[in-house]
């Protein structure tokens, strides 16, 4: 088993420490490193949300890399320049270490260091299938397998954590899963990241909807899955007239392509959940004819004061106990509470198994 050093760590990568079973035979995270100026050094990697991971965040890059086998470059909230990332890849390469990239970088850099960089896309050969979508095939297929849809208020609301949690639940209960995730980290966990064709301007919205439907169907058939989990990047609607969240267009496309059987919503922490949750539920119900089945109240809230100053969305990280207290009042789940996870597991399994009793023809 190879020892991984994560860099540059921040709280948006907590899932890489919490969920390691998928790659347990190949890899284990050994060191978590973050630039000192990011404010994580010297404390548990989960402390910002009030949980223990038993990893203490370090700031000495080379010292910890020497003790590791693999440098894993991760996608953090602070976006490092490609030139900066290349510097770290070069250090790893010079030390004879392997590199895993969970962040998109310039192809030229990947080519330059191809001997060191591991292509994690080939971890599971089944993912290499070539889907030949026929453009003239203008129909939407009814997908018979249960579909779980993971939505969120926006970026940074831990949607990916929910997606891995779902994967773990279904796998642990013996189900075969087809999964499309919101981040490139999906490759590392052995599933598909959100397909690039959904982001291309050259393809019409109508075609994207049809392609996505065909894509999901083909994946599910190819992988002989019992359940399909789809994470939708971004948010479901605009925050306000300035922060538009791409108007939730991706969810519009996905929600027209498939019909979910269970919808999970990762909510930003908000001041008025009693007003916000019904608002979101109604919005989805009237737009797409589905309702929310489960809500995770997450540890992020928008810091509007800083957002105004920096002219981009800035978030405030909250402690899990604080979030859990609110979640209890509204009978919703939190991501870092064991009791909540168990309750959620029972909820989703009993709901979907209940649907399975009555097969639709």
């Amino acid at each position: 088993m190879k020892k991984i050093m994560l860099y540059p760590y921040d709280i948006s990568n907590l899932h890489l420490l919490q969920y390691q079973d998928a790659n347990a035979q190949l890899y284990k995270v050994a060191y978590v490193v973050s630039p000192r100026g990011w404010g994580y050094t010297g404390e548990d990697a989960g402390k910002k949300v009030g949980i223990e991971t038993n990893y203490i965040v370090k700031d000495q890059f080379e010292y910890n890399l020497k003790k590791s086998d693999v440098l894993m470059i991760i996608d953090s909230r602070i976006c490092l320049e490609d030139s900066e990332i290349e510097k770290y890849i070069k250090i790893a390469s010079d030390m004879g270490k392997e590199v895993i990239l969970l962040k998109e970088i310039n192809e030229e850099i990947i080519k330059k260091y191809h001997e060191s960089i591991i292509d994690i896309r080939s971890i599971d050969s089944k993912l290499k299938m070539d889907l030949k979508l026929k453009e003239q095939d203008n129909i939407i297929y009814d997908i018979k397998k249960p579909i779980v849809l993971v939505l969120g208020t926006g970026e940074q609301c831990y949607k990916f954590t929910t997606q891995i949690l779902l994967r773990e639940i279904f796998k642990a209960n013996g189900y075969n899963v087809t999964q499309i995730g919101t981040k490139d980290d999906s490759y590392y966990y052995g599933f598909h990241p959100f397909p690039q064709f959904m982001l291309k301007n050259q393809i019409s919205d109508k075609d994207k909807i049809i392609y996505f439907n065909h894509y999901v169907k083909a994946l599910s058939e190819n992988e002989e899955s019992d359940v399909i989990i789809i994470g939708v990047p971004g948010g479901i609607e605009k925050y306000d007239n300035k922060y538009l969240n791409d108007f939730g267009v991706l969810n519009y496309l996905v929600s027209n392509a498939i019909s979910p059987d269970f919808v999970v919503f990762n909510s930003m922490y908000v001041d008025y959940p009693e007003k916000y949750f019904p608002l979101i539920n109604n919005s989805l119900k009237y737009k797409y004819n589905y309702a929310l089945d489960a809500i995770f109240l997450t540890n992020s809230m928008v810091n509007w004061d800083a957002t105004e100053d920096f002219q981009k969305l800035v978030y405030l990280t909250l402690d899990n106990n604080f979030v859990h207290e609110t979640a209890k009042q509204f009978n919703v789940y939190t991501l870092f509470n064991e009791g909540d996870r168990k309750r959620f597991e029972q909820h989703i399994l009993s709901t979907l198994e209940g649907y399975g009793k009555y097969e639709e023809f």
Partner: protein
Amino acid sequence: MKKAFIYTFKTYKNYYIYDFNTNAIIRVEKEVYDILNENRNELNARVNAVTEELQNRGFLQSHHWEYIEHPVTKYIHYYLRSSIKSITLQVTQQCNLRCGYCPYSGTYYNRKHNNKKMDFDLAKSIIDFYMHHSYDMPELQIGFYGGEPLIEFDLIERIIQYVNGQAGGKKVRYRMTTNATLLDKKMLEVLAENDVALVISLDGPKEYHDRNRQNVNGKGTFDIIMDKLDLISKEYPQYATTVAINCVIDPRNNLKYLDDFFKNNEFMKNRHVMFNKISREGIKDKESYLEDESYMQRDLFELFKLLYSKVEKTEGIDISAIPIAYYSQLKTLMSNRGISTLVEKAAHPGGPCIVGCHKLFVDIYGNFYPCERVSEVSPDMKIGNIKDGFYEEQVIKLLNIGRLTEKSCKECWAAKFCFLCAQHADTGNGISIKKKLQHCQGVKYEAVEQLKDYCLICENSDFDNDILWLDDIM
């Protein structure tokens, strides 16, 4: 009908209601205005129809906040541990000038100039504290303050090197306000290389500047500063374009003459010039630098010319740069104010920033203050120190300064326009109800002027506006 929580006002053309609960401005007919203004219950079918319609649409509610609480209060623990936006380091308490209006000159309830300076190890621990308490922020923002910060330039350079070595890809923005008299080529090289946003204090033409900004021997500093500005332009022409000027206006000054200086001076052209009045917060002698009737008239005349030019779009009016900030602030204030029919159970008057996070000021001893503008000798302004961290209870107290005058604030129609923070309630010995209440009349006066100016501009130009025209509502 219960008394609606509104404020009525008129421009020379129209009649308006400012509706507190929704924060909306609604133009109404004179008839409606008269009745609402006098809060009369009159049998008038037309007026009754209008008020009923407005009520149906969520306006004219009688609701008042039940209690005062800043919306950030319940999250302040998390803000303080993760979201310090900006920090200002007092690198020295010494200054090489003795400006008459300086808060540290002895004319204010504050500390006085002295030879004490910040130690590098302390500076490092403050930077470490800041980095550890700003992990949710996309950038670091560090200011250098004094006294005159350039006196301790070596320290500043070491701090910059230290921060740059630790930031790890996080953008760092530095800033410094200086009298520039000590600036040399070596310093400029460091400042330009690190994109330090420089604000240089210059009070206008020589006779105005030298009247207040003098060295310890009483000699004016205008000529030195002009030489330094030349040096910046010559050595770092690109960097020179980013340098801003801070001009403090002495009420004795002729505003036209002051404005002409900045318009005609070669260096000042296309430069960002900030005009500020002499601060009266914490001043001991209430008579010094007092704005008399004649100054206020001149000030208002400049504003009038600006507004007239916007309204009539008349060319050839000599518009002063001095009131321009008011115009842009008015636009921002009004367009950001948010209109909602959501009833707020509790809230806080406008004014306080997120204490401790917005612009944390740290003195040479490592004591924390909300910003550099507060009195360093007032015990209530101290919100923590580098050893103990933040005093959260004190932060909450200053964040919720409106609780000091809760009854008045809950009754005040101008609470959402209020600009009072803890500084305005501070006597130099601590915060006081009486001191805070002294400002309330001024807040209301300014709110009325802002509402009228905004509506006046909207009535006559294409200034983006959100005034609700009653015709549209009906």
